[in-house]
């Protein structure tokens, strides 16, 4: 009796083990490393089921960690060989370093890569653009969100040119019901990101100026780089009382509570604003200098996904990455997260009106990325951080645009060779 039951048990377990082995021979499980723990539900409920349905035999697990810990945790896991098959890529140097260490695979020939423009890929390429190591997922676009009700109430038109923009601000200020623009300088990055990098591309002509700066053909003291600071300095008249001590959440709340009319924005605000504001919102791109000028927008590449070079499931992972590069993924992702726009060249159908408005500018304007992100922030002093301080100073009136530009240029020249000529 005892013997029989033992045999049954053994046989049973053999069958069990056998079936597991059979299953694993067919199924591959891919693990995604990510810092986007906010997106866990979207991955589990929408993206992964859609992929698994189309590709039976490949299972995907999304395993995010906290944003602030991501870089350190990922590096440790990659060094120890325990990282997942797919790696969510930060833009520029952080990912480039992983590629240079041989921890991210070269994906230049991945089917689907042709769906992305060079600007979209620039954040995950080697400096010479010869190798691409992550599939671009999403970007954020800068512009201005405005309170439609307030504009109607005051009889205002959406401004196209800078002159009209300041005329609108003057009218709102004169009327006095609304604070013309909700922005503060306390957190510094607001002034640089929503200010300088928002309006700047119109002055330095997007990619043209950005690349010229990297090649050392233009300097930060050139007029096209100083003028955005001059415009920013004029903003201070239209910001709320005590904007020097106004923080980023303060600005968001001022706008969503309906106390301010215009909000210099990044598209990532859309989902938050949709929830909090109970008035209708519209958006307009950064106004151009003169009517008919080409407009440029900051369409900043923010998130991508790459392949762990040490992954044993490289084939399955590449299938997944090709799917990420497909229009199908783009559609689900862009609609689940309005404000994070697909970088794919094929236009994506979106439902959110505000997100649609933002993305429509891609058709009318030239896209570029933030000027300080590629290469120029590798040294000390760090150009991006210095730009934060300079933008806030200029709006606060404690530094003139020329002085600020001069200081930034000197800082950049001190370590960046192409600028030393």
């Amino acid at each position: 009796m005892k013997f029989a039951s033992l045999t049954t048990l053994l046989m049973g377990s053999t069958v069990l083990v056998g079936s597991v082995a059979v299953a694993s021979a067919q199924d591959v499980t891919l693990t995604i490393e990510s810092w986007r723990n906010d997106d866990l539900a979207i991955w589990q409920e929408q993206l992964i089921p859609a992929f698994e349905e189309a590709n039976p035999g490949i299972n995907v697990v999304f395993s995010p960690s906290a944003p602030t810990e991501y870089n350190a945790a990922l590096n440790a896991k990659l060094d120890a060989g325990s990282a997942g098959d797919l790696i969510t890529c930060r833009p520029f140097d952080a990912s480039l370093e992983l590629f240079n260490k041989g921890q991210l695979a070269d994906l230049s020939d991945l089917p689907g890569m042709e769906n992305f423009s060079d600007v979209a890929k620039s954040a995950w390429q080697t400096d010479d653009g010869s190798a691409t190591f992550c599939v671009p997922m999403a970007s954020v676009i800068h512009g201005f969100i405005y309170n439609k009700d307030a504009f109607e109430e005051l009889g205002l038109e959406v401004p196209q040119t800078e002159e009209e923009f300041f005329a609108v601000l003057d009218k709102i200020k004169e009327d006095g019901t609304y604070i013309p623009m909700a922005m503060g300088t306390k957190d510094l990055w607001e002034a640089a990101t929503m200010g300088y990098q928002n309006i700047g591309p119109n002055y330095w002509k997007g990619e043209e100026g950005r690349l010229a700066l990297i090649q050392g053909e233009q300097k930060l003291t050139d007029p096209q780089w100083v003028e955005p600071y001059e415009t920013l300095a004029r903003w201070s008249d239209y910001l709320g009382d005590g904007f020097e001590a106004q923080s980023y959440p303060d600005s968001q709340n001022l706008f969503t509570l309906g106390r301010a009319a215009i909000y210099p924005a990044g598209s990532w605000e859309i989902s938050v604003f949709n929830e909090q504001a109970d008035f209708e919102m519209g958006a307009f791109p950064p106004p151009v200098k003169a009517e008919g000028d080409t407009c440029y927008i900051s369409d900043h590449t923010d998130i991508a996904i790459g392949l762990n070079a040490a992954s044993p499931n490289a084939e399955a992972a590449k299938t997944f990455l090709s799917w990420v590069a497909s229009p199908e993924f783009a559609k689900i992702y862009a609609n689940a997260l309005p404000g994070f726009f697909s970088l794919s060249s094929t236009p994506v159908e979106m439902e959110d009106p505000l997100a649609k408005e933002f993305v429509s500018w891609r058709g009318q304007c030239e896209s570029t990325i933030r000027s300080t992100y590629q290469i120029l922030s590798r040294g000390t002093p760090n150009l991006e951080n210095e730009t934060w301080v300079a933008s806030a100073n200029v709006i606060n009136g404690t530094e003139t645009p020329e002085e600020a530009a001069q200081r930034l240029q000197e800082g950049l020249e001190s370590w960046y060779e192409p600028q030393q000529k």
Partner: protein
Amino acid sequence: MEFASSRKKPIRWHIAVFLAPAVFVYTTVMILPLFGTLQFSLFRPSLVGQAFVGLDNFRTLLGDPRWSASFWNALWNNTWFFIIHMLVQNPIGVLLAALLSSPRLRLRGFYRTAIFVPTILSFVIVGFVWKLLLSPIWGVAPGLLDLVGLKGLFAPWLGKEEYALTTLGLISVWQFVGIPMMLIYAALLAIPDEILEAAECDGITGMGQFWKIKLPLILPSIGIISVLTFVGNFNAFDLIYTTQGALAGPNFSTDILGTFLYRTFFGFQLQTGDPNMGATIASMMFFIILIGVCLYLFVIQTRLRRYQF
């Protein structure tokens, strides 16, 4: 005593045994990291790992125009932060202690607790609460000033280069005034009644008694408090970081050695961390504090002893 010492002394193992845990823990978590940091500041990363560069990092920190500008700015801000504490926190602490020790004061326990409570609050709470209080948009500060007709005096203090650091200094004073108060209070209570009675017999009462009798007797406590303030201020970081962020805005006007170290060591936003230069700054902080404490020990404290009984 004579009886005990005449015998052969046994080796007192228990002293070593009882000291061991503390020595071990202190060595691993304080002394080793300290020497590790000092050592780190003498190296730079090179192609083959860390290379010894002698005092080059210190030369960069003090010689390079950009590094030295940041360093001296942080050091001066730190000094100003310390001056505010010495001029505001400690005199107020002494005053509060003197009032508390007055025998006619009622509800003494309540005041003592109320003034001490902010000390045990987290920096994050203190920073956040004060940021809200002083906020030009939601804060109560503009409204309160308006009530007494002084709205014109309000400014977005935390956002103005000229006021931000002083404002933060005063917030820190508000938080920590309880510590000098408690120490001085204890020192005042420890003064023997006979001395005070003798003073009264000689006709020294009231304010005169405080200045001529009590103050000289609590000077050693004030000295200790000054050293604690000095060490605390030059190690400060949390309050600035929680209210102004790692870039210590506006325009680095609130940048102190702690935030400068943090930014350099760990990096910030697109800036990658530079542990070697960070260790160099940390070593400078250590030397500054060491010099300050030595000055106190060898110059001031030796003179203070004469007043003791």
